[in-house]
């Protein structure tokens, strides 16, 4: 089928070409602008693997194009709506199913212990067997065929069959699409839909297309209205916007210079174009999948503490880890002159140079733990200058008896959980502000590495049980130092 000569739009993602075209109408002369009818589209799948004679090319009218848009969009939504689980065993390509057994992602990967991602995979498999659903036509769009018989079927994770229905050409009724081809096709159709929405011609009243005679009369009317509204446009800057009246829409068509989409007379039942967009959800039978028990029974201590735990805005006392940072491997102790020492971004990234073990142990340990200060193997020479910095350091003259038992509890807490990742080379340091109930109120990672590795530390979330309640009340602040070698240090910063 040959395309009309005037191509309006061409969408060219890497693997397909979608052209929208229409015939010029004699009405163009009367209307003084292009009036187009018989909108047609041509879709070429550009597959470099195929010889030119096997390249698939389909053409159709606007109704069919809309059906294609809808079918593809719904199908794509179904594809991504299929929740990934480790136990899901959909082969990449159905043809190579057997061979894929040998692939790591082959059909052997069925979860047997229910260690699914979001829900037990075996239950998922029982209720909706994966391979079955992927081979099922109904999987695609809830109906075996969409409008005009156009629909898609999955053939594994990476390939999809586009069944052309009415669009079938002599030799091809099904087009096999790779994931990339499907992606590109969906994008092209989506772009078309988005533009078609923007074109105000598509909501024109059906009478306009009833008969050619009507159309001619209408063209005269359009001309008359167009002239008058063109004048109106000088007065009313909004006259050119769509969705006011039919007459004004025509005016706006002039403004868009895109011409009028004069629909093929037999397609009288016109609807707004965005059919691909307003498709009802593709998965008409949403998977009703229970969550793992752990998810359902999870305590949610954080709910009552909406924002306490997180410093939202930078303040002098709440260093934000993403602040401009100094290199993480500081050769020297970085001390921001006008800040609390530990607030200097990056300073915390090498905290073993920042503190003297004797001091931190003495400050952080309960009385019976103070003796462990013997492990002073890190830069003791720095203690003198550091202690002069003051800031939020505990008073060097304070004794071990000044500390609170929560410091030791915190150390025990992290000693049980801290397993340094292999990739970690730096010390991680955090400042924790405790609530009177012993939970963490606020976590401040000191330095970039501390922020990056926070999810490996075993750090409790704000509001979670952490240490025993503070008998004396108040909200003490403690420092946690986690070494790459597995050592955990804690000490009190402020009572």
């Amino acid at each position, binding site marked *: 089928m040959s395309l009309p000569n005037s191509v309006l739009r061409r969408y060219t993602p890497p693997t397909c070409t979608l052209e929208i075209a229409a015939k010029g109408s004699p009405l163009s002369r009367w209307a003084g602008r292009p009036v187009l009818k018989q909108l047609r589209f041509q879709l070429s799948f550009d597959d470099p693997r195929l010889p030119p004679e096997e390249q698939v090319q389909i053409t159709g009218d606007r109704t069919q194009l809309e059906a294609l848009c809808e079918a593809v969009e719904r199908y794509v939504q179904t594809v991504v709506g299929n929740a*990934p689980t480790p136990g899901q065993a959909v082969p990449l390509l159905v043809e190579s199913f057997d061979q894929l057994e040998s692939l790591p992602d082959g059909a052997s990967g069925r979860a047997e212990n229910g260690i699914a991602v979001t829900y037990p995979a075996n239950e998922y498999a029982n209720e909706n067997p994966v391979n079955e659903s992927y081979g099922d036509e109904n999987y695609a769009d809830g109906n075996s065929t969409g409008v005009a018989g156009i629909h898609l079927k999955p053939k594994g994770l990476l390939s999809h069959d586009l069944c052309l229905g009415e669009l079938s050409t002599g030799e091809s009724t099904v087009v096999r699409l790779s994931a990339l081809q499907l992606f590109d096709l969906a994008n092209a159709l989506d772009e078309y839909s988005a533009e078609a929405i923007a074109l105000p011609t598509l909501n024109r009243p059906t009478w306009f297309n009833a008969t050619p005679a009507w159309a001619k009369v209408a063209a005269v009317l359009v001309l008359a209205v167009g002239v008058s509204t063109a004048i109106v446009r000088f007065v009313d800057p909004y006259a050119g916007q769509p969705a006011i009246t039919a007459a004004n829409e025509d005016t706006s068509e002039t403004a868009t210079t895109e011409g009028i989409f004069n629909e093929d007379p037999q397609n009288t039942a016109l609807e707004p174009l965005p059919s691909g967009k307003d498709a009802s959800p593709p998965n008409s039978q949403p998977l009703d999948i229970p969550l793992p028990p*752990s*998810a359902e029974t999870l305590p949610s201590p954080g709910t009552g503490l909406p924002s306490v735990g997180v410093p939202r805005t930078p303040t002098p006392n709440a260093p934000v880890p993403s602040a401009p940072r100094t290199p993480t491997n500081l050769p020297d102790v970085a001390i921001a002159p006008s800040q609390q020492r530990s607030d200097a971004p990056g300073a915390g990234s090498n905290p073993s140079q920042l503190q003297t073990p004797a001091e931190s142990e003495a400050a952080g340990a309960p009385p019976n733990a103070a003796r462990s200060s013997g492990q002073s193997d890190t830069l003791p020479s720095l203690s003198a200058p550091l202690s002069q910095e003051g800031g939020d350091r505990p008073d060097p003259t304070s004794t071990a008896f000044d500390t609170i038992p929560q410091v030791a509890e915190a150390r025990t807490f992290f000693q049980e959980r801290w397993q340094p990742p292999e990739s970690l080379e730096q010390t991680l340091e955090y400042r924790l502000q405790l609530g009177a109930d012993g939970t963490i109120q606020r976590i401040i990672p000191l330095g970039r590495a501390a922020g990056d590795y926070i999810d490996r530390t075993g750090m409790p979330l704000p509001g979670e049980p952490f240490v025993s309640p503070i008998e004396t009340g108040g909200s003490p602040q403690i420092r946690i130092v986690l070494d790459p070698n597995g050592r955990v240090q804690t000490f009190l910063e402020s009572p």
Partner: protein
Amino acid sequence: MPSTVKSPRSNAAWEELTSGIQPDPAQLDNIKAQLDLVLLALEALAGIGSEAMLRTAAELNLADVVADRVSLWRLRQSSPLRKGQGRKRLDIEEARSLVLIACHLANQHQELIRRAVGLLEQLAEQNREPHQAALLGDYLDNFSNAYQERMEDGENTLPDQLTHLALKLLIDLLFYSAPNGSRRLWMALLDRTGIAPHPSESDL
């Protein structure tokens, strides 16, 4: 390449899409687990760290929801799959923010995602293992390591299962990298959790 800039119109439509949705706690758990996995896949493929995620949040004017590493970590830690006890409840606005961030990042790295999927297609056609391509091999290794390190069931999940999960996420990422990716991801999340989409979605 399509622009990532959202028009005011589509933003408004997005607002409508998310408004009026009240997932129950179990559904939210599901959503946050899925979102965490999408971000994990992005991390594994493109080396996207918390820094880039925070920057994206700022670009998208979501800094009030995702202000710093701690808040980002808390959001992601809210996945029920993660190690550790106790979960912060992810609210719908936070979920929405993570959707926008993930899809923005996917769009930024669309070329890379596309290349990875293209390689996967080639290898699958030749019945070769995905690991044979360096890009895919690195991705699969990174993903598996991160999953095993951070997830509660990480140690018990078979390598085959992790590989399959990673590849499925990779293909999904491709579709999320489209200009309408955030809508797709959002609809997918609702779909998977059985939440009826908002009726006004047709406006998108």
